[in-house]
Structures are given as structure tokens and as C-alpha cells.
């Protein structure tokens, strides 16, 4: 799990739904189901953390993942169309692990709806922060400081860092989250994370013995937007503090370039004759990439808006993205 920054944008789908479906007193509305899968919402999540699961760091199932309601919509219906409640999850974390659960401290009750939450985002923010939840939130908790990789244990297990272990609440939160999502018990997850970390350790050793190119291999593996990048990063920081790891800006450049490639691929497919059903889907995927780029352009987590614009320009894509940017 790595720290995420939520872009400050107003997504057309959410604006539209907010206007069309007012809540009743209990915070329930006759919402349509599934519009959280619209390209603007998905695009925003890809912009936030690439195509990896917010919880376990695996590749998002199918390169797309599930739009995950952090607080389940069955318990918190009023957060069904609230962007601050969305994360990208893999199918395992979203469906089999999380489902409709949201563990709280045993003494606590789920937060109740209050009409002010609807009008006042700061009030909502405060109310959410006051809830005694047990699961880590990669947006508001300092997860980069709290989570650690136990590389000496042969399996590269996730554990609470010294900083988190010092405090009872944070330690409990970390341990609960690890257990809840099976971060150290799902075979494929443990295996793939461990393989990545082992590969990085091998490369680090060769780099430390003078093989400069192997340092680049570690830098690639520790990309924030790729699977288990955060775990490799944690290990490299600890074992080889002298190796410069990619900056937030470098990783962001990678994400922008990668998304531009997806855009090119989609355009390539659309030039060919394909069944209508497939065409609709490719257009949808293309829109997602456009939204991702537009959102990064509008509110980048690193670098600056001007710089992102330059990267998009370099590939001649300004005209393709600008209409999306205008709708944010």
C-alpha cells in the first residue's frame, strides 16, 4: 500500500448524478447502479495510482480493476457517488476480501448521514476523519511511514514499521489491514511480491559491486505506479540508501507516457474494421485514457500543470485531451 494523492477535480458523472438524484433524510437516493464505472471516474482513479490495486499493490485485474467503494455503499449509501470514497481495487481485494465489510473499533458505530455532509465538503471530511475505522486509508493515513517490508524473513512480508508499532492505534490499524486483505497469506500475492523484491535485492548487490546498469533495474522495479513498486522502494531505501530512486516527477512522467501509449493503441484498433460491440468498448477505454491525462494535466500530484502539458504536446496529443480538460 502506498500513499495516494486524490486529484481535486469535479468529475462530470458525479456532478450530473448529484444534480439529478437528491438524497432523502436518511441519505438514500434512487441512484442508478454502475455509473461509477464511467470513463471519467475510472480515468481519475488511474490518474491517482496507475493500474494497480490500492490495497495489495497487485496489477488491477484485467488492467482495469474494480472501482472500489472504500466505505461500502450498502452501509454508507450516501457515499455511493462521492469521489473521496473511491479507490481502484483488484478483484480479490474488492470482491472476496472487502465485499460489504468495513471494520470499525469494537465500540464504534458506522457514521450516520447528516444533511450538512451534502453541502459542506469540509464538514464531510471532518466527519469521516472522526470515524473509528480500522482499515488504513491510503489517501489520509501516512501509509508510507507506517508500512514496511520484512525482507529478512525470506517472504518479504508486509509489517508495521517501527514508527507505526510505537503507537497502539496505528499498530492495530496496520495489523488489521494486513490481516483483512490477506497481504501475507494470499499465495499469488505473496509469491509475486516476493519475486519482485528478491529480484531487486539481487540487482542491488550487483549494483553495489559496481554494475551501474543494475541500479536502473531497481529503479524500474520501484516505480510507484507499477505492481509492488512501493515494496521494492521500501527495501531499496533500507538496503542501499545511496542509490537514487525515481522521484515523484519521474514516475509521473512514466505514467503520462504509458497512458499516451494506450491512447495510440486504441486509435490503432479503431482504424480497423471491428464489430460494433468491440468498437464501443475500445472507445470507452480510449476515453478513460483521455480522462486520466486531462486530470493529471489539471491537478498533477507532482511536477506542474505546464510540464504535463509539454509532455502531452511532445506526442502531439494536445487537441485530443483539451476537450476533456474543458469538462473538468
Amino acid at each position, binding site marked *: 500500500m502506498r500513499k495516494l494523492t486524490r486529484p481535486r477535480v469535479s468529475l462530470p458523472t458525479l456532478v450530473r448524478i448529484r444534480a439529478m438524484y437528491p438524497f432523502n433524510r436518511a441519505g438514500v437516493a434512487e441512484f442508478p447502479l*454502475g455509473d461509477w464505472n464511467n470513463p471519467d471516474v475510472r480515468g481519475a482513479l488511474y490518474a491517482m495510482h496507475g493500474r494497480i490495486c490500492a490495497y495489495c499493490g497487485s496489477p488491477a485485474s484485467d488492467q482495469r480493476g474494480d472501482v472500489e467503494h472504500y466505505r461500502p455503499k450498502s452501509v454508507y449509501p450516501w457515499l455511493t457517488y462521492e469521489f473521496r470514497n473511491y479507490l481502484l481495487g483488484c478483484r480479490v481485494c474488492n470482491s472476496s476480501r472487502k465485499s460489504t465489510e468495513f471494520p470499525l473499533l469494537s465500540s464504534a458505530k458506522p457514521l450516520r448521514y447528516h444533511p450538512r455532509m451534502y453541502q459542506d465538503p469540509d464538514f464531510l471530511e471532518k466527519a469521516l476523519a472522526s470515524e473509528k475505522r480500522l482499515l488504513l486509508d491510503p489517501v489520509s493515513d501516512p501509509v508510507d511511514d507506517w508500512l514496511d517490508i520484512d525482507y529478512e524473513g525470506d517472504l518479504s512480508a508486509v509489517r508495521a514499521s517501527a514508527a507505526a508499532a510505537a503507537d497502539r492505534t496505528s499498530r492495530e490499524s496496520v495489523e488489521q489491514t494486513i490481516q483483512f486483505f490477506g497481504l501475507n*497469506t494470499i*499465495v499469488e500475492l505473496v509469491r509475486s511480491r516476493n519475486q519482485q523484491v*528478491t529480484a531487486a535485492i539481487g540487482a542491488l548487490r550487483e549494483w553495489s559491486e559496481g554494475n551501474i546498469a543494475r541500479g536502473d533495474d531497481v529503479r524500474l522495479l520501484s516505480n510507484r505506479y507499477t505492481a509492488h513498486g512501493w515494496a521494492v522502494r521500501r527495501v531499496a531505501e533500507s538496503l542501499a540508501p545511496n542509490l537514487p530512486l525515481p522521484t515523484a516527477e519521474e514516475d509521473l512522467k512514466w505514467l503520462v507516457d504509458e497512458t499516451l501509449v494506450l491512447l495510440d493503441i486504441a486509435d490503432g484498433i479503431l482504424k480497423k474494421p471491428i464489430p460494433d460491440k468491440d468498437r464501443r468498448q475500445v472507445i470507452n477505454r480510449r476515453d478513460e485514457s483521455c480522462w486520466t491525462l486531462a486530470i493529471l494535466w489539471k491537478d498533477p500530484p507532482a511536477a506542474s500543470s505546464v510540464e504535463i502539458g509539454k509532455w502531452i504536446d511532445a506526442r502531439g496529443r494536445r487537441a485530443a485531451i483539451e476537450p476533456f480538460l474543458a469538462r473538468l
Partner: protein
Amino acid sequence: MSILHSISTWSGLIAGLVGVGVGVLFFWLFGVIRRRRLLRAIAAVQNRSIRNPHYGERSGDVAEEARATSFDQPRPSGAIFLESITIRNFKNITRLKVDFMRPSTLTGEWTCIAGINGVGKTSILQAICLVLLGGELVNELGRGRLGRLLRRTQVGVVDAEIEAFVLRDKIRTRLYIPLKHAGPGEAAVDIETLRSASDYPQMAKIWTDLRRQVVVGYGANRNVSDFKDSRVTNYSRTVQRQMTMFDPLTQLASVDVILEGGLKAQPVIRTLRSLIPLVLQSEALSPTSSISGDKLQFSMHDTAVDVIDLPDGFRSTIAWLVDLCAAWHERAGADANVDPAEITGIVLLDEIGLHLHPSLEKALVPQLRKALPRVQFIVSTHSPMVLSGFDRDELVILDAASPSGTKELDRQVFGMTMDEVYSWLMNTSPGSPVMEEMLEKKDPDVAMFLYQSKDVSQELARKLIDARREDIKELKRKHD
């Protein structure tokens, strides 16, 4: 005289011997030729392509709706195919529509239904059974049995409706079965409502014609035993052919052909002799070439074995193949000599790969495509091996979470490995449950086990772990 006599005796003897010799020779030659011809026929079927040459063809004047069902593809004339079904309030299904003839990149008319237990695979097959049997015959199943097919809700039992469309010679006909609650735990087809439908005459015509065509259904329990089941003898033959779908203890309808053989079984056995080696490509099993040929036997490790004594794994597949061929030969006006490729009909099969080893399971569907290209198959399975043999538009993946009840597939699965089919299509982690348990319990040997794989032996795993520990130690020493 005595010399003459002895000469004639000798010559008679010699002539007799020569005669017998020639006879034996002919007998042997006949056997060889027959065997050769069979092998050649089998090889010819093997060489058939499973790629649909008509995929992607479109004619300008066909409506969008028709295009969605490969309406235009050439099909045997006169044969009835099931195009779609809509099921309402049937068992645990509230509402579900399934299309069976979507354009596919592969040959044949195949649909494979998959999904977790209890999601309604068998229910769909049963609903198809009913709608193909037709109003009158459905009631033969009995009010109690039909009563169990209605959906139960908190407020009580709800009446069920099944609506289907069939295609024959590019003419589409609707079939309809209203199943009404009729007393506690009982139900029956509402014949009055049915007859008052404006298209009832067309429906009745199709149902009558379907009785002359092969429509067979096999539940996940398709048994062959020498137990005489007296319960099913009252049913008409058509209904009897579907009974394993509704009653797990029923015998197959053609159990007599399988067990007793005799003259009427001969054509069936002939057809099977060319069909079975194609479908079950096992070294261990082949139908015997006994010349009398009035009883179906198999040779296993050079001994003749009756169907009933076959290993379970083979038996449940052989059983339905025999029943299908028997049903074909039982139709009025059937030829005694049949190329299986001529057989038309609709086969419903729950758990198609039942009991088969993955290596046999793997070949089953592609081989059936080649061997029985004109039969419409609607099957279900839990096996990733079987699933990976279908086009994405032949697959119906039931998914209770999706609003339409099925999962729309945006890619082909035949390029995938079994691991990928498990996780992508079946939502199941392919990891070992033992490993999960050990990780959970923090077993001291867990790392050793996890490092082993198809490329890493236990010895190598040890080395890899040691090398990694060494790397860490070295790195730590450097920056301390």
C-alpha cells in the same frame, strides 16, 4: 478301388482344407478392410477444421437483431435449432435471457454455461428441456416434480414462464410454457393460457416435429446399471430421454441397447464404432471389432469389457454418446448406416467433462465439433480445460452480481492458460489451499515451499533462499 477311394478321401480333405483356408483368408481380409475403412473415416474427420468459415459474413438486408444470432449461417434444412430462451421465476432465477446462436469463430452450434454452484446452470438446462418438450408432454413429468421448479419467495410461490425462440430454415417460431402453481408443492402447465396464445398452432407444429427430431438431455447423474427402474416406464419416450435432468436416480432411456444389444442395437453400435474413438482419444479404450457386433463391448488392455464394467470415468461419457446414437436410430425412417456427421438434433448436457482426466477432457469439445458438426450442444461445466475450448460468444458465464445475470466477455479464452481461466473467468484463486493455511499459521518451512515451482526444485529453492540471505548480509555490511 481302395486306392481310388483313398484318393477321393484325400482330395476331399484337401479341398475341404483349402475351402476353410480361403474362408479364413476372406474373413481376415474383410476384417482388415473394414478396420482400414474405419481408420480412414476417422482420419478424415480429424482433418476437419474447427474454424467457422462463415464468421464475420454479413448480408446487407438483415436486421441488427438477426445479425446478433448468426441467422444467416447455412444450416441443415428441416432441423430445428434453439435460438434463445427467456426464463422468469424458475427455481432460483428471477429473470434471465440466454442467446444460443451468437456468431462464433468456431464451427458448430455450441453454448457452454458456467458459473458457481447454485447460480442456475442446471435450471437453465431444465427450462430448455421443458420448452422443447412442449405443453402436453411437460405435464407428464408430474405435478410434484414441476412444483419444485417454481421460484419460492418470501411471500410464497410465484408462477414461472419460459419463452424460447427456435429457428428452422430461417423461420423463427416462439415457444412458450406458462407453469402455474397448482396446490401445495405442485405445479402444472396452464394449458388454457397456452392454447389461447395467437401463435399456438405454430408452436404445436414445432413441438410435434421436435418429437421426430433428436432432443436429449442428460443430468450430471447419467447412470448405467442393470437395476430395472420401473418408475420411468410410464413416460413417453421423448420425456424419458430427459429424465436424468430431473431425477438423479433415473436410468438412461437406452439402457437396454447398452446392456443387452441384440439385432436392433446393431446400427447403433456401428455408428458408435466410428464415433467413440474420435471423441475419447484414449489408448486404453477402443470399441471391439467383434464381427457379430450385436453387443457393445470395449477392448481395454486386450480384454473385452461390457459398457457396464467400464471404469466410471469412461462410462458417463460413453453412456450419453450411446443414448444419443440410439435416439437417432430410433427416429422413424432412420438409415441403418449413418455417418455421425449427418446426425442433427439438440443435446443438453450437464457437466460435459464429468469424471474425465484433463487430457481427455481437453480434446472432448473440439472432437465433438468435428464428429457431430450438425448437432446443437448446450452444455455446462466447472472445468477450465473445457471452458478454454469455446469461443467467447459461445460462453454464458452466469454472474449473480451483474444486472443482466451474465458476464459479457471482451476477449477469447482459448489463448489463456488454465491459471488465467481460473482467475479471470472463474474468479477463483489458483493457489493451493495448503499454502494459504501455512502462510496463515506462519509455518517455519513456508518459504521453502513457496520458492518451489515447476522450474524450481527443493534443492534449488534452498540455494535461492541462501543466496538472497547472503545478498542482504553483504549489502548491510557495505553501508554500515
